[in-house]
């Protein structure tokens, strides 16, 4: 009898301890259990029996389900196009298509791009060097030139971009956020308005472009692998947004490229700057080409070449209504709300995973939450008669 009494006391103590540590678990990210359906776990009732401890089938079912299909891997799956050229008359048509694409379109595009680069460099270098003293004029010209070279890039893929909504203007205390499919997102948006962007520093010729030309529009670099980097980047973001002369800042809060069928969780960095957030939704039409850049499978150069040998890049860009943080809303809730707006407009689904899980393991907090739920249920049912 005495042992049961002190058991009860310990249990109450334990439950109190669990509810305070719950706060800590919730602050960092939204509740994944809201998204993941737990149909297999019904709320068990009645006295705890041996069967309840032995029956690990719900947990096993979840594990089995994850092995068979999971929402995270689906986000980064590039669907190969269905082969349609297996017929007697379709195959020659397809061959003709290949000849046209590689033999006619590709050289023309390379020509256009080269022309664009020549024009750009011959204007940009003098402007950059000679107008060192006249900053305002220089910045204006450089902005125009960057927009020009981006237009050339888009032309080199025969890009058909439909812009919907009011054109963004440069105002202080505002940031733009968009869903991310490939680095070409930036080029497509840049040809309309010169944004400053925050990007991962890349190696090779892309890195060279980043450090020279993109510097002039005002870009911020981050490094995924550095832990302390987040604070430094947050500070740089804040400084940029406050400056009245800086170009409007474009941020891709997913932090990684996703296949344009899903959005992964937005990082809260862009949403805790105290500025207005203007969402932009981008949706590519897959019939012409799959614009998803699977950075693990191909380099950016290969990706560009693939685009240049396809028929066209067709996409829709929607500039959506600017959003402000509602009173009493946390940055995470704000981020999720904006993500919902963007996903709804682009017609893509949301998944509750952090994009950086591509590069690292999930934090043990998720497993702990499951363990906690089970432990609570066991202890509660031990009491039931």
């Amino acid at each position, binding site marked *: 009898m005495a042992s049961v009494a002190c058991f009860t006391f310990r249990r109450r103590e334990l439950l109190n301890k669990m509810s305070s540590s719950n706060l800590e678990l919730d602050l960092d990210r939204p509740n994944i259990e809201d998204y993941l359906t737990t149909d297999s776990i019904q709320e068990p009732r009645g006295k705890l029996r*041996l069967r309840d401890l032995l029956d690990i089938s719900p947990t096993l079912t979840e594990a089995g389900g994850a092995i068979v299909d999971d929402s995270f891997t689906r986000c980064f799956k590039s669907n190969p196009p269905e082969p349609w050229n297996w017929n007697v008359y379709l195959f020659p048509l397809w061959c003709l298509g290949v000849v046209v694409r590689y033999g006619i379109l590709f050289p023309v595009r390379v020509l256009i791009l080269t022309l664009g680069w020549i024009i750009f460099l011959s204007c940009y270098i003098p402007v950059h060097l000679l107008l060192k003293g006249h900053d305002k004029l220089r910045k204006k010209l450089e902005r125009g030139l960057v927009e020009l070279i981006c237009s050339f890039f888009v032309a080199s893929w025969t890009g058909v971009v439909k812009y919907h909504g009011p054109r963004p203007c440069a105002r202080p205390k505002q940031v733009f956020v968009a869903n991310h499919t490939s680095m070409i997102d930036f080029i497509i948006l840049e040809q309309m308005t010169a944004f400053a962007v925050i990007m991962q520093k890349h190696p090779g010729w892309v890195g060279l472009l980043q450090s020279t030309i993109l510097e002039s529009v005002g870009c911020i670099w981050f490094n995924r692998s550095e832990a302390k980097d987040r604070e430094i980047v947050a500070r740089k973001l804040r400084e940029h947004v406050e400056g009245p002369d800086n170009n409007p800042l474009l941020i891709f809060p997913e932090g990684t490229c996703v296949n344009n069928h899903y959005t992964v969780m937005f990082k809260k960095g862009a949403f805790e700057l105290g500025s207005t957030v203007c969402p932009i939704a981008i949706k590519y039409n897959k019939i012409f080409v799959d614009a998803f850049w699977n950075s693990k499978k191909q380099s950016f150069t290969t990706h560009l070449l693939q685009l240049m040998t396809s028929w066209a890049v067709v996409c829709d860009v929607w500039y959506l209504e600017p959003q402000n943080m509602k009173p009493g809303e946390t940055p995470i809730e704000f981020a999720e709300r904006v993500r919902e707006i963007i996903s709804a407009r682009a017609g893509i689904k949301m998944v509750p995973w952090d994009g950086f899980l591509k590069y690292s393991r999930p934090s043990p907090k998720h497993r702990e939450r499951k363990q906690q739920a089970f432990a609570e249920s066991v202890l509660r049912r031990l009491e039931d008669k």
Partner: protein
Amino acid sequence: MGNTSSILTQYDIEEVQEHCNNTFSQQEIVSLYQRFCQLDRNSGGFISADEFLSVPEFAVNPLAQRLFRMIDGLNFKEFVAFLSAFSSRATLQHKVEYIFKVYDSDGNGKVAFSDLLDVLRDLTGQFISEQQREPVLTQVLEEAGYKKDSILVLSDFMKILGSNGLKMEVEVPVD
């Protein structure tokens, strides 16, 4: 069956189907193969630890480590056999056997108190203390008519789990 080939012939499918006792349809086996190839990124013919743990939904499961020990280094045929317990066509006996294997980590056909304690620890983590777990388990065992030092075998598991039916099913997405 070639380990690095990514094309599955009809013969291969039938071989796999036989190996898993017809618990999966041919279409499901093709889907599972696509999934296997997707997970096996370096095309080594089996899925390594790293590749399994890169699926976040699997990595956050409390029993991931335990399952992982059972699934490590399996080729495709064995992979399908491993998952066959989750098919809707699997028998109750099969499912209970599967659960028994998860408990019986050393594979000697006996589940002792320590094995039960290990799984309970995986499921509850730090939220029940070591000193509490033992009495809870002992109490529940004794109420079911066993003793703390009883050794459970498969037939015991069948008796305990088999009475009310077991719901352990995963649907294989078929395009």
